[in-house]
């Protein structure tokens, strides 16, 4: 079978460019697909005509689009779908294996990501209900109506949702899925190494009956990405801090950068810390430690060294396993240089006074290793003697966390902006302080993994409030 070519989708219509990139196996570099690369001018021209895409979606009711989304979820999870426009079909197993081979994610993690996406698509009614706070879908269709006895009117803030996607974790695609049921087309630059998931999702939607015009899939360069963010009116960008800082403060761009998620243990529960090691381990290492909701710091009032040692004992021995091993925890690096950079950074920062590698005593060999044909980083737990240490509030694309002792009274001030906080405490005063904290996006109170997200409560931006605004309305009888 020839190598598939994934064309760009211009309002759902395949467009094969003369310029192509390759998506390669993270182990042997073999080419798994070629990808059409388009110039920014093509995106700008298509956006001039984007109202056509919105009109195509507007012909459907929200209810119909929820049903289409649900069907798309089933197709995505189970069925064969077109891959490119040359007759290649991709089964669910093909998708899993190919994505695994180019991303380095073990099969078991890809399957979990698939399940998350499937859940999101098949529970869109629940999600929209959470996003809209229970607005009757007929109000969304008409644009106005009554809610709880009061008139309400909503208008879309844009004709298209722009997306500049990452390559690190397939489930981030679940963030844009509600956009279709909200009748807003998507214009996407996929991650360089992860075209598979968004392309398959778009094909699933189209196969489920969604108008193809709703989908723009544009592998492109920096100029193209910049235009998607600038011209779509509403856009999501994923990236590291240097990327996301560029768009901080832009109300049209929702920034998804590092999460700096954390586990906090209160004074009242710290004596029981051993009970919570499992939740710490899963928060740090699930999904290969690649998510913004992975915990990257454990903040405790005391027993810091003991906790670091216990985490080291659990995580330190972990080794890369075959990619299809159901017990695999570590992910390979699609870009080995990234792994090398992280390893060097950790070594340099650990050499600074005030920190030590608590995993080192339990790791037989170096952190960076070649195994299973690829490049891997084994987990790292860094004990830091204060939040001033450079490693105390860092995030890396691997299982990494710091353990830091901070008095409970200073914890919330010291943690900085944090996507997910899991606070293990029953202390009412501390709970109230946590509930009032403005630097925490999602708060788990109790021993809940930071990885656990609620689909009916967005942990990072509300897509409905991003894509629609409420306005006052008066209508003559």
């Amino acid at each position: 079978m020839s190598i598939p070519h994934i064309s760009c989708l211009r309002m759902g219509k395949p467009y094969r460019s003369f310029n192509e990139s390759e998506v390669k196996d993270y182990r042997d570099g073999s080419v798994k697909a070629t990808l059409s690369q388009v110039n920014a001018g093509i995106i700008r021209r298509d956006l001039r005509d984007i109202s056509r895409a919105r009109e195509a979606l507007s012909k459907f009711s929200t209810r119909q689009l929820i049903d289409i989304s649900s069907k798309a979820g089933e197709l995505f999870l189970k069925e064969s779908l077109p891959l490119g426009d040359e007759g290649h079909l991709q089964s669910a197993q093909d998708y899993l294996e190919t994505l695994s081979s180019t991303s380095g994610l073990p099969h078991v993690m890809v399957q979990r990501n698939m399940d998350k996406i499937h859940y999101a698509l098949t529970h869109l009614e629940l999600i929209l209900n959470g996003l809209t706070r229970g607005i009757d879908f007929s109000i969304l269709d008409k644009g106005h109506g009554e809610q709880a006895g009061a008139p309400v009117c909503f208008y879309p803030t844009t004709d298209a949702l722009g997306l500049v996607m990452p390559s690190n974790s397939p489930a981030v695609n679940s963030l844009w899925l509600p956009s279709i049921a909200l009748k807003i087309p998507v214009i996407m630059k996929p991650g360089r190494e992860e075209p598979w998931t968004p392309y398959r999702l778009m094909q699933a939607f189209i196969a489920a009956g969604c108008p193809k015009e709703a989908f723009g899939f544009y592998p492109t360069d920096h100029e193209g990405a910049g235009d998607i963010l600038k011209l779509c009116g509403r856009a999501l960008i994923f990236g590291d801090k240097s990327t996301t800082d560029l768009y901080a403060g832009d109300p049209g761009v929702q920034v998804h950068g590092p999460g700096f998620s954390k586990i906090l243990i209160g004074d009242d529960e710290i004596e029981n810390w051993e009970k919570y090691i499992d939740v710490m381990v899963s928060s740090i290492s699930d999904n290969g430690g690649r998510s913004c909701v992975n915990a990257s710091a454990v903040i405790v009032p005391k027993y810091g060294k003991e906790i670091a040692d216990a985490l080291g004992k659990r995580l330190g021995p972990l080794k890369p396993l075959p990619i299809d091993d159901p017990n695999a925890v570590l992910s390979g690096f699609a870009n080995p240089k990234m792994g090398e950079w992280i390893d060097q950074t950790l070594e340099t920062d650990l050499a600074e006074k005030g920190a030590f590698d608590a995993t080192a005593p339990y790791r037989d060999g170096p952190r960076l290793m070649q195994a299973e044909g690829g490049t891997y980083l084994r987990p790292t737990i860094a004990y830091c003697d204060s939040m001033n240490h450079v490693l105390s509030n860092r995030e890396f694309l691997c299982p990494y966390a710091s353990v830091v002792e901070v008095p409970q009274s200073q914890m919330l001030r010291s943690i900085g902006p944090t996507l997910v906080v899991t606070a293990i405490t029953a202390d009412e005063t501390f709970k109230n302080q946590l509930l009032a904290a403005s630097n925490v996006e999602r708060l788990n109170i109790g021993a809940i993994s930071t990885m656990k997200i609620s689909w009916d409560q967005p942990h990072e931006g509300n897509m409905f409030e991003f894509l629609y605004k409420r306005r006052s309305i008066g209508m003559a009888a």
Partner: protein
Amino acid sequence: MPNEEEVKKAADELDAHVAEIIKWHFSPETGCPFWLDWAKEQSWNPLEEISNFNDLCSKFPNFQDEWLRDLPNDVWVPKAYADRPFNIFETGGTTGMPKQRIGWDDFRIDYTAFSDTLSDEHFPRNHYWMMVGPTGPRRLRLAIEHLANERGCSCYFVDLDPRWVKRLIAGKQFDQARAYMDHVIDQALTILKHRSVSALFTTPKLLEALAERKDLVKAGIKGVFCGGTTMDKQYARFLVEEVCEGGQIGFVPTYGNTLMGLARHHPISADNDYSIAYYAPQPRAVLRVVNPDANQAVDYDTWGRVELTTLTKEFFMPRFLERDEALRRKPWDEAPWDGVAEVRPFGAMEKKIVEGVY
């Protein structure tokens, strides 16, 4: 493809022209101080040893462009032109002391010849042109006006300073670069709004930007003459199919510079994957695609460095290595000599080249 006889005839004409130009530039009664002095320092005599293009390629070293920057202009004045003031033309986007080429009639001769390659359908006679791009000290500004005049047209001008754009981009002042481009486009749109124009000369990026803000077909544009920066196959296709609306506007890409003149292009379409091949105005200029270390043309359809030889009575420039690379293409019926295709900055695949927004 031209037949062997046509290719040989063109090669013979080139050889005869080379002999004539060598005689002109290296004879004390007609030549310029630079080449006469240069010849005195050599252990061989061009007048005796160069009788064809192969001789030229094997005997002359690569022309050093610093000579055009460092030496006074009058060393390049052939004796036959000594009593006529010359134009001073500068090369495109460099900063610091620019390279300068002097000239008298070459640009008129080159562009008059080029006019014959343009169709009346897309470049109507007796109407108006507009140039949006680098004017200033460049030969292009006078050349485009002459070309328009040659076709009975007059030409409006909107300037763009590529040296400023390069500085902005090198300094990562992308907002300023964008603002400057908008400023240029605003001026062009103002002309289009108030005046009737049927033909444009501009750069690919400016053409794209213009088309984003105005329907060029509705604005009455029938032909676009375009050059200045790289156009790979995908970009050429985009410009033809989308910006020029699939042929409604005639798209004429060109490759040229102050040192050469103007190379015409082989027609492009989906049939040849929009691979733009240019053919030099031989025998006045010759383009080779070479391996510079071996001083040999590369095989057809493979990449090599672009080498230019200019052979006019005003200016002799042997084997100048351009800062471009290209694919070598076979002769074409209308230009039975080698072409250069998919021209891009030399080393473009290895490093990022600042070409700017223009």
